[in-house]
């Protein structure tokens, strides 16, 4: 119920924003995902797509999909080394970016909410709401094209605790629609 309500409110925010959109783009990104205080997985890769919807110069809503392949855990017990699947983390949701700077160079703190799914061999899938926040740097060397790097902290709420991940990503985006 809580999850449904949260996502419904998120959808409301996105629809409201898209109706007044001034600029819509599409982007892809990749980087690393580092589990934090989490012995279930090791560092892995992270890839995804984003659809930045710039509503006003200072404010962008950005639906996203990301997929992380987390690193396996290796432990030696006795004389045998065992390997545990690090699992996959998939997420879709939306970020809100607060952009500062010039059209060529931007600094943007951001926060987001999404639906996260953790999959690991031999374990039940975990699907829960997650939250993210971070800081990004963006460059737009030519019109319509942007590149960015981000540091991000994701927290997937799993019942009474959470699983946390730090991400560092680099991405590029292209503006596909702009209102004058």
């Amino acid at each position: 119920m809580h999850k449904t309500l949260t996502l419904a409110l998120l959808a409301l925010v996105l629809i409201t924003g898209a109706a007044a959109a001034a600029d819509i783009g599409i982007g892809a990104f990749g980087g690393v995902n580092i589990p934090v205080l989490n012995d279930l997985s090791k560092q892995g890769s992270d890839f995804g797509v984003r659809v930045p919807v710039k509503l006003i110069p200072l404010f962008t809503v950005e639906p996203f999909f990301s997929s992380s392949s987390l690193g396996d855990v290796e432990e030696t017990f006795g004389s045998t080394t065992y390997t545990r699947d690090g699992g996959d983390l998939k997420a879709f949701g939306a970020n809100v970016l607060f952009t500062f700077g010039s059209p060529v160079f931007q600094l943007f703190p951001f926060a987001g909410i999404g639906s996260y799914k953790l999959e690991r061999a031999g374990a039940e899938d975990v699907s829960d709401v997650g939250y993210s926040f971070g800081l990004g740097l963006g460059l737009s060397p030519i019109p319509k094209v942007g590149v960015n790097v981000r540091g991000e902290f994701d927290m997937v709420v799993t019942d009474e605790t959470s699983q946390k991940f730090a991400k560092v990503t680099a991405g590029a985006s292209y503006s596909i629609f702009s209102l004058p």
Partner: protein
Amino acid sequence: MKTSRLLLGVVVLAALLGNGCVITSAQILTHFDLPNPFTIVSSTADHSERVPVDLTTLSEYEDHKEDLKGLADLAILGKFTNVSGPAGGVEVYIVPTLDTPPGGAPAVPVGATLLWGPATIGPTGASRTIGWDESAGLFTKAGKDLLISEVKGDGQFTLYATGSAGTFDIRVDEGELVLTLDAGK
């Protein structure tokens, strides 16, 4: 526009505050050594191996005992050798009490809950080291629930390992109970 921003902020804040201790939490790996080696033999007093488990002897458990919310992952590992007998498997049962003495027992107690298995093994001479992923998938729902209850409780319980075939003589080397504790303040 201001309404949309305010709404999103309120949603995020309410969700975080509503989930209490989610921010200061961690998943911590720990393990309990099973007797090394032990044998289970269908025709003797070693029909099952009684393993009293006291998690309070583990520093990772003691350090986080007050903050435990559950188990994020678990496995039973080891090398299984069929000394004599047909192909079969190894099963592990759990009881919530700390039974003693450790060692051979003539039978699994009535009322014990199947926790894990069977981990299959071939006929006489067969030997295998079970994989971590495979082991994690061999836990039963009822057994796992009881184990989580014990982990969140006094941390003391007893495991009984036995064979699943009618006739068995199986040796277990370097057995381990591996737990990933889910803790949060």
